[in-house]
């Protein structure tokens, strides 16, 4: 296929903003945490794994999901914190499977402990969910090469929407960049592979943007040569 002559829709660059909502559900020990996890909406699980990327949080957190962070800082159970921290949401088919894994790890730890550990008052785990507003930036991309210039200028909201959120939204569970490149057939196979290898979970949105920008830049520099 000649990529100069595209017959499919251009890549519409969107942006998003997120707002947090209290669910009113609070846990003070592991038993309460697993009980609430059993019934809390998947939106809340999503928020506690991925929402940190778009809300006030330090860019270099010790733990990449809120459950591990709370267990370490409020319950001071480093063993469980490490087990929770290593859970990578990308490994799971959907959020319900991720929920089951969390409950499994929590229950295993409760079996090991002789007595329940309580978080101090005022330091409970607060279950939060979020609402996301997706809006147009009024920019479109017609040719993959245009991304070389555009990606470094993308907002972190745009990176979140097209890279993180897309995996949950798209039926094939891959990001919007790869999905759009699929339209061009084999021509950008290597570029797609590179995008696919980016480990989004242990990164920040700024780092993700840099990684994507580098990949596109390198690919098209080579293609030119």
């Amino acid at each position, binding site marked *: 296929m000649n990529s100069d002559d595209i017959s499919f829709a251009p890549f519409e660059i969107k*942006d998003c*903003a*997120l*707002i*947090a*909502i*209290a669910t*009113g559900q609070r846990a003070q020990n592991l038993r309460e945490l697993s009980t609430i996890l059993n019934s809390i909406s998947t*939106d809340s699980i999503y928020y506690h794994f991925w929402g940190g990327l778009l*809300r*006030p*949080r*330090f*860019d*270099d*957190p010790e733990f990449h999901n809120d459950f591990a962070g709370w267990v370490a800082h409020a319950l001071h159970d480093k063993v469980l914190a490490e087990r929770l921290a290593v859970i990578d949401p990308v490994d799971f088919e959907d959020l319900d499977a991720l929920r089951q894994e969390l409950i499994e790890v929590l229950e295993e730890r409760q079996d090991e402990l002789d007595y329940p550990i309580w978080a101090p008052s*005022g330091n*409970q785990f*607060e279950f*939060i*969910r*979020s*609402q*996301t*507003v*997706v*809006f*147009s*930036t*009024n920019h479109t991309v017609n040719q993959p090469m245009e991304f070389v210039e555009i990606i470094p*200028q993308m*907002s972190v*909201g745009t990176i979140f929407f097209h890279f993180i959120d897309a995996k949950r939204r798209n039926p094939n569970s891959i990001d919007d960049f790869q999905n759009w490149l699929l339209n061009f057939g084999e021509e950008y196979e290597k570029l797609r592979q590179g995008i696919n290898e980016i480990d989004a979970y242990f990164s920040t949105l700024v780092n993700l943007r840099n990684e994507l920008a580098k990949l596109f830049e390198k690919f098209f520099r080579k293609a030119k040569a």
Partner: protein
Amino acid sequence: MNEINGNLLDKYAAVTGQDVIEHLRQLAQPLNGLRVVHVNSTRIGGGVAEILHKMVPLMQELGIQTSWEVITGEQVFYQCTKGFHNAMQGNHVNIPESQLRAYEETNAKTAETLRPVLEEADVVFIHDPQPAALIRHFPERKGKWVWRCHIDVSKPFRPVWKYLRNFVSGYDASIFSLSSFAQQLPHSVYLIAPSIDPLHDKNVDLEKSEIREVYNRFNIRPREPMILQVSRYDRFKDPIGVIQAYKLAKKFVPTLQLVLAGGGASDDPEGEAVLNEVRLAAEDDPDVHILLLPSDAHRTINALQRVSDIVLQKSVREGFGLTVTEAMWKNKPVIGGDTGGIRIQVINHHTGFLVNTPEGAALRIRYLLHNSDKLAEMGDKAKEFVRQNFLITRHLREYLTLIYALLYNSTDRILLD
């Protein structure tokens, strides 16, 4: 107001980066022409008025027809709302029936005065308890009403909260500053952290001469290390613990100076007592400077934060702790109490240290003063963390997002075309 502040967004772009402002413009575009009204109880003084002084013109500049109204009343109304404020922070306050009547009557009168503007509004933000009862007088309202609570209500005095909840329950949504403050209500409870205004006198860059002037004014030696805590003289802020930490650290850093900067306490018997305890604990140490500054000494506080090496906020109970945010904005690592909103700002070993005792604070003071590279690195990280998360532009973005959430009855995702 729009004309006066025609380039307000550009001024913020110089601080936050153009991408942040562009993001706001795109987000606000579909809201062009929307009518938004903010109602609070004062235009002068206090954190809410400070935020609204910038939030309102910023929203206007984004094309949203935004106005700001104020509820005013007789002295008994303010006595009542001061009681509400204290009770919501956990003090056991019995509010007499006569004050509650004055509160409801003042809201009823204000409702009539503001009826045209509030009935026409698409979105109404009611700030804090003072105007909360207005909603009772608009049973046929067309717009969405949201109650914004700026107070630490993690442990409210229940009888007073029960009274106020009768009004708050009628809103379409409410906003609290931290998840630990959020109360159970029959509508969506949003979480929006407070913010600082980088262009306010408290935070704006100062000329070197203005910064240096505080050395002379307060007899601070410029070349010797100095630590600072800015807060009113209140036991929850633990000023005695700060002096203990200073004394422990001074054994190892003999030239260390401490500045405690707080407001006057003449109308507050508890504050007066704490101030006396602080003076006693300082034992006439000439290197401990206990300052009583007027409430509008913003530039002085700003300069003090800039000349200090480390800022402390050793609170044992804290709301959000905007003094922490302000210090971090001036590239200062903060040694803070492990409580409230300090926890989400002070990231151990990155933007400062969380401590639980004077001993812990003293250890961290010594560590930072002996590791100047680390001190500078943490200060830079602290400023960047505030830039990304706690400036008024982020606050504005969340208000815009909330407006969409109110206008669209969607659960988790709102797609704008």
